[in-house]
Each structure stands twice: as structure tokens, then as C-alpha cells.
């Protein structure tokens, strides 16, 4: 009875238009999560390492954008390309300096190094950029609102999923149909045998970090456009959530990361929309989802079976 009343309440506040509005918001947030989650999953796939610095690389991308547009007045379309390149390079530098020297060390050492790299980037950002939040420069082109029937949609809400889907297909093509992609898949299974094939594994791993970081850069810039305030620690919570998205989808699996990202994004928005009294628990949703997945399907939705024919 109580449940029925409860559902009635939801139906009263939720018109089909509103539902669509929330759904588009959820899809757009999910796309952002997906873009960043891919970076976690790719690095995990190739190194069995959780790259804790990934969320901070995402944060760095927003600052690169800020300085490029606000300080150097570089037009946004040039900025976007520059930031993607710079962030990709940053990811490769982090890999070469914090992870590569520990390639043969026990896994715990490299994990600690990842946490160190994360703190370093965060504190560097506080020292260099200042701790006070900055306003992200959002060109009107992206933020304009238009109406579809009675649903008001920001252009960005459409742009984000479209960009994410295009990048996802480009990434899948790269991984499944190019020589470098084949090398990445081989290295992710067996470093030593990949070396025997003549694959330069350092280069392949570096490339993986570069691509993951470039996707995080796109995610970061669009995040900035959507939530136009940036701060040195802004990467921590989205970083954790995207990591959760990767785990939920099955870490190591790119499609899984995308699915996890969408589940998280849509779930979070719908939770707040349907049960406004739970708004304060918005962030908790991700962690509850993580616990549920770890309890019932530890390898994630698309996770590979551990058993393998020897």
C-alpha cells in the first residue's frame, strides 16, 4: 500500500516530457563518465594497474583549456585540439616517469606510485593554478538552449553524447583493425610473448596512456562546459565514479566501461529526479552500485571469465 502511494507520487511529478529531459541529461552525464572510464579500463587492461592519477589528468585538461582560452586568447577550436595533445602528452609523461621505472617491481609498488602521481598532480595544480575555483570559459555556441516541444535542451546535452559515440567508434576501430591496436591487445595478454613478436611494449603502453588521457581531455573539456567551475581537486570524485563505472562494466573491457558509464550517469540523474528526497545521496549511488556489483558479479557486466584454457 505504502509502495503504491509512493509510486503514485512519482507518477504525479513525472510527466513524459520531464522524463525525457532527465533521460537526456543522464545520457549526457553518462557519456562523460564513459569517456573517462575508458582510460581506466585501457590502462588496467594493459598493465593491470589502476591509474589513480587519471582523474587528475582529467582535471589538468580543464586547466589547460582555461589558460589557453582566458590567458592566451586562443580560439576554442584550436584550444580543444591543443589541449587534447597536451593532455595526451601529460599521460605519457606520467607513465614514463611514475610507472615505467617500476615495470618489474611488485604490483603494490606501482600502485603506490600511482597514488603518489595523483597527489603530485593535485598539489601541483593547487600551487600553480591556485586553490580557488575558476570559471570555465564556455562559448555560447555550446551552452545555448533550444526547445524540443516543451523540453528545453542545452546544445551541449546533444553534443556530448554525439562526440562520445564518435570517439568510441574511432577507438574500437583503432583497437580492432590497426596494427598498433593489435599490439595493444597482445601486450594486454602477455608482455613477454608480445616482445618476442618484436612489439615494442614500452611504446605500446605509452600509446595506451596517451589515448586514455586524450579521451579524458575531451571528457574534461565537456565537463567544464557542462559544470563551468574548475578546481584542483575536481578530478577526485569524477575520477572515482569513472573508476566505478569501469569496474561495473568489467574492468579491462572498453565496451564495458561505456556501459558502466551510462548506467552510472543515467542512474544518478534518475535517482535524483525520481526520489528528490534522496538528492543528498547522489554520490553514494555510485558506491552502492559498486558494492552490489562486487557482491554479485565481481568481474563486471562485460567482464571476462578468469578461467582460460592453458
Amino acid at each position, binding site marked *: 500500500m505504502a509502495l503504491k502511494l509512493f509510486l503514485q507520487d512519482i507518477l504525479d511529478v513525472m510527466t513524459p516530457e520531464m522524463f525525457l529531459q532527465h533521460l537526456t541529461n543522464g545520457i549526457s552525464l553518462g557519456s562523460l563518465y564513459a569517456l573517462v572510464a575508458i582510460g581506466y579500463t585501457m590502462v588496467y587492461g594493459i598493465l593491470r594497474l589502476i591509474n589513480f592519477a587519471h582523474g587528475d589528468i582529467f582535471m589538468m585538461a580543464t586547466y589547460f583549456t582555461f589558460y589557453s582560452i582566458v590567458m592566451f586568447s586562443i580560439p576554442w577550436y584550436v584550444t580543444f585540439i591543443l589541449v587534447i595533445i597536451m593532455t595526451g602528452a601529460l599521460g605519457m609523461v606520467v607513465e614514463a616517469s611514475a610507472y615505467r621505472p617500476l615495470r618489474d617491481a611488485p604490483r603494490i609498488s606501482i600502485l603506490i606510485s600511482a597514488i603518489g602521481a595523483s597527489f603530485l598532480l593535485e598539489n601541483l595544480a593547487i600551487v600553480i593554478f591556485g586553490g580557488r575555483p575558476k570559471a570555465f570559459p564556455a562559448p555560447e555556441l555550446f551552452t545555448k538552449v533550444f526547445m524540443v516541444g516543451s523540453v528545453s535542451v542545452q546544445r551541449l546535452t546533444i553534443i556530448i553524447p554525439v562526440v562520445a559515440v564518435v570517439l568510441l567508434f574511432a577507438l574500437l576501430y583503432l583497437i580492432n583493425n590497426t596494427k598498433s591496436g593489435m*599490439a595493444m*591487445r*597482445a601486450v594486454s*595478454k602477455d608482455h613477454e*610473448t608480445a616482445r*618476442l613478436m618484436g612489439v615494442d611494449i614500452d611504446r605500446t603502453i605509452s600509446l595506451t596512456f596517451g589515448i586514455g588521457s586524450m579521451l579524458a581531455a575531451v571528457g574534461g573539456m565537456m565537463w567544464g562546459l557542462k559544470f563551468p567551475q574548475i578546481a584542483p581537486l575536481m578530478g577526485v570524485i569524477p575520477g572515482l565514479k569513472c573508476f566505478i563505472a569501469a569496474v561495473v562494466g568489467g574492468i579491462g573491457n572498453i565496451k564495458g566501461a561505456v556501459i558502466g558509464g551510462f548506467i552510472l550517469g543515467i542512474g544518478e540523474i534518475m535517482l535524483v529526479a525520481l526520489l528528490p528526497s534522496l538528492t543528498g545521496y547522489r554520490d553514494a549511488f555510485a558506491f552502492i552500485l559498486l558494492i552490489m556489483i562486487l557482491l554479485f558479479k565481481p568481474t563486471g557486466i562485460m567482464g571476462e571469465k578468469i578461467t582460460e584454457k592453458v
Partner: protein
Amino acid sequence: MLKIDSLVVSYGGIEALKGISLEVEAGKIVTLIGANGAGKSTTLRSIVGLVKPKSGSITYKGKNLLTEKTQNIVRNGITLVPEGRRVFPNLTVLENLKIGSFTRTDDTNIKQDLEWVYSLFPILKERSWQLAGTLSGGEQQMLAVGRALMSRPQLLMMDEPSLGLAPLIVRGIFEIIKEIHRQGVTILLIEQNANAALHIADFGYVMETGRITLTGTGKELLANEEVKMAYLGKKAEK
């Protein structure tokens, strides 16, 4: 072609190789036999640069290999079929073969070599779209050998290609080794199946706990009493 001189390799203070010297002449089949832990695999792994030796030298066509990275050694025409096959289970059969030719850029020749590998192992052609992880053990071994051939090696090294395979398949694998050799590829073979290995080998080395204890042609070693006792399971004749 390949010359190893007083090679010493140690893993964390334990010497796996205690100064071995051996030579592989071009166009020959050379085999290394010996028990588990004798250092056979370590020898091959040192040649391709997966293990960094403590001292000694490895030269290939007069070139020092010790300072080279694995990918350059492969590019120079040496390839290793690793112990336990180690095919990439998440890649298709065709992709496994393609990654064997990773260092090459001569696309038309790669296509020819692919056809050659398919003619040696017709089953691989049938299964080219299957994931390598779904192949049987024998098929995976064929794939591992085929993959190595795709780098068009001048020196093909094999680490226990018969391990864990049924006798009939082992015979097939040895036939293929002879066939590859007839095509002009030099072969360095590690085997526990000493009998089969010595029968096809021009020259053999017997290893024991990091040292080479006996050398000779395949026939000489087959006739050697110690070898017979230790590796061929025959009692010494009185």
C-alpha cells in the same frame, strides 16, 4: 651463425647458467637436451634478450646481441617459439599470425608467407577467424610455430615444441620442423624428447645444471652410453 661464449646468467644470486659456450652453424639443426632446470630455456631467453646475462657474449653474424633490444633481435632474423605455446588467446588465428610479422613492412611477401604457413598447417587456414584460445593444444602449437615463421626467421628457436602433446601430433610437429629446415631455416631446438630431437639434429649439446657436459653430432650422442642411460631410457649394455 650464432656463437655463445662463456655465458653466465643468474637469477637473484642463483646461477642458472655457469658459463656455457655453444655454436649454431647456418643451415643446421642443433639441439639442446637436458633435464628440467638444466638451463636450456634460460639459454634461449638470453639469446632473444628476455634475460640479461651477467657475463659472457652472444654474437649473431658477428654482431653483439647482448646490448640489443628484443624487437631488434627479432628484426635481425631470430625468433623463439616459447615454451607452452603462448599464443594470444584473445586474438584470432589470423591475427596471431599477423602479429608474428609485426616487425616487417614488406606486405606482399607477408601475404606469401601467410600462404606458406597455411600450406604447412592447413588446419590454421580453416580456423583463421577463430580465437586462438579456442584451439586444441596441438593446434595452438602449430599456431605458435606458424606465428614464429611469419617473422621470416633465419634462426628459429623452439622451446619444447612437443610438450604435452599426443605422440601422433609430436611426430607431425617433428616432420614440420624438418620441412622448415629444408626451406633453409637454421633451427635451435630444446627438447625433453631427446630421442626424437637427436634423430633430426645435426649437432647436439647436453646440458646439466647450468653447464654443457657433452657435445657431439646427433648420431654420436644417440650412441653415447651416458646419454642413453640418462635421457633415452635405455639400460647400459654390458
